[in-house]
């Protein structure tokens, strides 16, 4: 069974600073996809960034970037220049085949 582990239940960052959220996963597949979703208090699931396992280059979306280490099965999310609006739950998810497997999430607090 595939599992996704987020070892940080809570993280805190000051506005304008950088924070990294950790994610590891367990799989025997070679072809898969990884995602970070943001869930604000409204509970809406918002896609932040995605990474294809066959790509060596780390994905980047504006202030969000990932550090994808395939051999280590690690997929961390870096948020640069943190903003108050970044405060949310962040879920790491893994997909091979039809559906996503989610980690338990990391709650990110952004302080002024």
């Amino acid at each position, binding site marked *: 069974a595939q599992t996704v582990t987020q070892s940080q239940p809570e993280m805190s960052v000051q506005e304008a600073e950088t924070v990294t959220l950790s994610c590891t996963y367990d799989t025997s597949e070679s072809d898969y996809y990884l995602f970070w979703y943001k869930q604000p208090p409204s*509970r*809406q*699931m918002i896609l932040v960034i995605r990474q294809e396992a066959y790509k060596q280059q780390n994905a980047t979306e504006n202030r969000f970037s990932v550090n994808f280490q395939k051999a280590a099965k690690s997929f961390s999310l870096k948020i640069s220049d943190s903003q108050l609006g970044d405060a949310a739950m962040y879920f790491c*998810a893994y*997909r091979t085949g*039809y559906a996503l497997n*989610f*980690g338990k*999430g990391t709650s990110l607090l952004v302080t002024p």
Partner: protein
Amino acid sequence: NAGVTQTPKFRILKIGQSMTLQCTQDMNHNYMYWYRQDPGMGLKLIYYSVGAGITDKGEVPNGYNVSRSTTEDFPLRLELAAPSQTSVYFCASSYFVQGSGNTIYFGEGSWLTVV
């Protein structure tokens, strides 16, 4: 640009009652899903569908039923509601082709409380 639409957003049920959560998508996606999210947890897959007329169980299907009569609609039926079904329910959809990692799009969630 409606995307994935779920109704109702909030519902309180009494133990033993039944109800249906409605979900519709306008993106012509072949795959649709129902997830539940319990407090402090990630999302768990209840049921999914790969196309009209085809459904299959996910990780936590007990107590639920689904149907997929059209590409657009994927209702989730709760029979004999129990307090353990108190959760936030998400419908989602994706255009999936083997070998691709197409993004899964989520509805805004339905908050269900069973008392």
